[in-house]
């Protein structure tokens, strides 16, 4: 262009993304909150649920001043205390988790924009979901309609994660509670990231849309057709896996290969295509890879064994890495022709490749598997009886394997029995083994301990087939309308969400038992991720898995799988939607009021029985900021701190009654925010207890107390001594337990207290006037 000023060539003008307003709800007080916006709310929670720290290490070794001994009251070279250091490490863990989910969300959105364009409309629930993104609406004050709207959200999330991470720098935040507040913020950010990822992939990959009747998916190794090539996908980003299915359908047939998966990629692939098979949770990686069944392994991101290339190589399985975040040392062949890559893999010139193009990685995976599988079947030699016997003979019973096993499994005794001709003990260990393989690292004789365990149990594994319901995604608005009232009033005793990884203390059966127990008691049972898979791996007396025996609705007595890790957003989202759809509270940029509502009225509890990862830490933190308690298993104390209430300190348990403006005692409800249980029975008792809320009606409280007492009795054989703290009026007492409870009330000089219209925001606003609003 030639003008009077000069000559302009190749001019591009970008005006950025315009969010055209099509939402008449008034903007709330806190859209796009910063890391201090909810500091008052967080401190209000933390004044009740104080951190109980359990340092994993006495030292800080994060800078060159260190190592610094922080034992007891000592401070480090930067002045930090042990308490602050623990909160700092928790924040680091939670930032890692949030960054992982947000990055995952970013990649999904970018890929889908590449496929469908920025104006592709989001549709996570069809006509049954009006509030399509409760967490984005709540936190960002946006109503996302297209993929490009999600880009705006992701930019905000990335900024916040960066700010949070910077707070962990040496000489930065040093107050434990300020660090904890930032942990909460990272959790809130994480949940928004989860929501972005899941509504994007539901819309783009056509997953079930809030469907309670999502199909049942095959689960387990039984029935894998090894006359076909077998592909294994591991990880969390479903794009490469979906591409494999699409490629198969387009160029061969959907049935021309078995596509199997582990962990969340498997869950999400099964949401896209019901022909996909889920092998098991994360803990099944090693046993399945070592079986030699998969011909090609496609890994994407998160929770993948970092030695996958070594293990795959040992059984001549080819590996394709597909994520920039997980290149595992493989040569980048993204820009090479598919044919040349396939040739190199088939000829074993390369054991694996990195391909950062999902369509090309799909082509390479399928074609390679088709060309190598017959020869692999002919040449694959499984771990033999002779090898097993020889390995067992080498065991000296030194106990090094036990001393490295997270569950202290009695491996030497089982090997001794195996040597004596009884494989049962070794076989039984397979159900309890989390697949970490530390036993093999520890064995001074080089015994392939895990291989031996799997060898003993393989026949059993190979004969069991289960089902898991494909992740349904969001909760319908109509479901929220149906259960909102009974939940808030307490007549449905609560929502119990089984989430997180597979680092179980006693195998996965405990999770399945707990889920069934709560469904039987008419709680709403939600599942996600590896917990969702694990729950499907058990049969009842009629031979049904929990997903076959219970409906997938969001209703009392149902067990519903929302989907993968990123689908956890629908669980926190459901709690938020109750405040919005049922209680008509404004959602838009109105986090604090909604969190106050959820905390005081929605009886929800998360159980992450095998929580292992930093992502699980971030997911838990997102629930904490909403005031939703989370219970972890005994390994969960390694997260370094709990958030515990003190039921015996009455002054900690008051709220403001919105009707009268008075501070009233409510009892310790919910008593803890982050809690590690030693046993399954304790976790169930505590979950029932933590479902109580100040807002429960008399009828609702009767139901909740009945479950609490019943589960407490099963745990300890008596009525809980603290039951008087949960009785507000005589009308809260279950009739069948009247005598024993009244005795308890008398013993503790119980006095009646009002049932308030509870809030904790007005309580601190009124006192300090410190609210940012």
């Amino acid at each position, binding site marked *: 262009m030639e003008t009077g000023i000069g000559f302009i060539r190749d001019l591009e003008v970008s005006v950025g993304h315009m969010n055209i307003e099509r939402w008449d709800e008034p903007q709330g007080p806190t859209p796009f909150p910063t890391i201090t916006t909810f500091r008052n709310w967080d401190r209000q929670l933390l004044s009740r649920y104080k951190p109980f720290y*359990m340092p994993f290490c006495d030292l800080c070794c994060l800078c060159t001043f260190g190592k610094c001994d922080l034992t007891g009251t000592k401070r480090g070279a930067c002045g930090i205390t042990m308490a602050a250091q623990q909160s700092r490490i928790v924040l680091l863990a939670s930032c890692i988790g949030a960054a992982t989910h947000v990055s995952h969300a970013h990649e999904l959105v970018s890929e889908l924009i590449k496929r469908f364009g920025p104006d592709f409309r989001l549709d996570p629930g069809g006509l049954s979901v009006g509030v399509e993104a409760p967490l984005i609406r709540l936190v960002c004050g946006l109503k996302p309609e297209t993929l490009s709207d999600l880009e705006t959200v992701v930019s905000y999330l990335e900024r916040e994660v960066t700010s949070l991470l910077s707070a962990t720098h040496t000489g930065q935040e040093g107050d434990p509670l300020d660090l904890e507040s930032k942990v909460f913020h990272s959790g809130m950010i994480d949940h928004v990231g989860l929501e972005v990822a899941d509504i994007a992939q539901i819309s783009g990959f056509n997953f079930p849309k809030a469907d309670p009747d999502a199909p049942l998916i095959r689960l387990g190794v039984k029935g894998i057709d090894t006359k076909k090539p077998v592909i294994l996908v591991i990880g969390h980003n479903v794009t490469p896996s979906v591409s494999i299915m699409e490629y198969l359908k387009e160029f061969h047939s959907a049935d021309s290969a078995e596509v199997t998966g582990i962990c969340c990629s498997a869950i999400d692939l099964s949401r896209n295509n019901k022909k996909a098979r889920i092998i098991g949770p994360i803990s099944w990686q090693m046993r399945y890879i070592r079986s030699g069944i998969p011909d090609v392994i496609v890994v994407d991101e998160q929770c993948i064994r970092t030695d996958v290339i070594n293990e795959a190589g040992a059984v001549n399985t080819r590996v394709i890495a597909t994520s920039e975040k997980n290149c595992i040392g493989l040569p980048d062949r993204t820009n090479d022709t598919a044919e040349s890559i396939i040739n190199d893999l088939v000829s074993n010139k390369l054991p694996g490749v990195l391909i950062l193009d999902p369509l090309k990685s799909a082509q390479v995976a399928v074609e390679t598997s088709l060309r190598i599988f017959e020869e692999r079947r002919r040449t694959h030699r499984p771990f033999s009886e002779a090898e097993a016997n020889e390995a067992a003979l080498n065991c000296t019973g030194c106990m090094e394997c036990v001393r490295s096993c997270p569950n202290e499994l009695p491996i030497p005794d089982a090997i001794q029995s195996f040597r004596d001709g009884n494989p049962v003990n070794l076989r039984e260990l397979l159900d309890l083994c989390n697949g970490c393989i530390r036993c093999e690292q520890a064995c001074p004789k080089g015994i392939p301990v895990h291989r031996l365990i799997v060898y003993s149990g393989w026949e059993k594994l190979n004969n069991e087939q289960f089902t898991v319901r494909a992740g349904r995604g969001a909760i319908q608005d109509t479901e929220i309308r149906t259960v909102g009232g009974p939940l808030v009033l307490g007549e449905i005793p609560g929502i119990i969400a089984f989430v997180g990884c597979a680092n179980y203390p006693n195998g996965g059966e405990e999770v399945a038992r707990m889920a069934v127990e709560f469904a039987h008691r008419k709680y709403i049972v939600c599942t996600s991720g590896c917990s969702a898979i694990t729950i499907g791996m058990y049969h009842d007396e009629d031979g049904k898995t929990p997903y076959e025996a219970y409906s997938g609705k969001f209703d009392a007595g149902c067990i519903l799988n929302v989907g993968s890790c990123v689908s956890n957003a629908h669980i926190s989202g459901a709690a938020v939607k109750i405040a919005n759809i049922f209680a008509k509270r404004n959602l838009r940029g109105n986090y604090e009021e909604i969190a106050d509502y959820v905390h005081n009225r929605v009886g929800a509890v998360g159980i992450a029985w095998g929580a292992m990862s930093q992502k699980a830490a971030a997911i838990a933190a997102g629930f904490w900021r909403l005031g939703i308690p989370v219970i972890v298993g005994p390994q969960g104390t390694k997260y370094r701190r*709990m958030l515990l209430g003190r039921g015996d300190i009455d002054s900690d348990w008051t709220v403001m009654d919105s009707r009268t403006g008075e501070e009233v005692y409510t009892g310790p409800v919910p008593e803890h925010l982050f809690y590690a249980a*030693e046993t399954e029975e304790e976790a169930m008792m505590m979950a029932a207890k933590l479902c109580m809320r100040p807002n429960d009606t008399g009828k609702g409280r009767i139901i909740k107390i009945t479950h609490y007492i019943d589960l407490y009795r099963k745990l300890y*054989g008596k009525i809980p001594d603290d039951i008087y703290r949960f009785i507000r009026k005589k009308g809260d007492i279950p009739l069948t337990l009247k005598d024993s409870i009244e005795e308890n009330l008398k013993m503790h000089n119980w006095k009646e207290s009002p049932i308030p219209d509870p809030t904790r925001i007005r309580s601190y606003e009124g006192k300090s006037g410190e609210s940012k609003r």
Partner: protein
Amino acid sequence: MTSHGSWMRAEIAGPKKAVVINKTEVVTALLKRFRSPVLIIGSRSTEIELNGGKLISYLARIAEVWKIPVVTTNRSASLYFAEIRRHSFPIPVIEIANLLSDPGWKGISENGTPDLAIFSGLPYSMEWTLLSGLKHFAPHLKTLSLEYGYEPQADYSLPNLDMNKFHEILSFIGRGE
């Protein structure tokens, strides 16, 4: 097998580690020295087998002889105490650890916070982390671990023991001498 590296190999302790009790008399001396001990019995107490029975039977004997109040953290230990008609306070282990960290806590019988907390029969890693919490944040409290595996985060701990030796030590303590 008698050593005092952590039972779980990777649980490397910091600068402050538990005093290893190599002589059983040290345990009995501790029980005599502290005025207000409490014995916390975990879920593994009914699983761990010693020569003369389950671990919990030894612990019940010790509690009786030394008149130590007992906290049972779990179902099986609570039922055991109910069956032998002895009193125990059922409190989840995470809650009792949190209470013990508070010097102002009234105590399980409202007679003040204990001065010695004895742990036995808990999952190793859970006990390790809880003891760490008490080591750093409960200076008013001493902790003693009665396990077959050395617990470095306690103030005092038995070393790594084989089950025969563990049986001998617990039997000796249970004689009340």
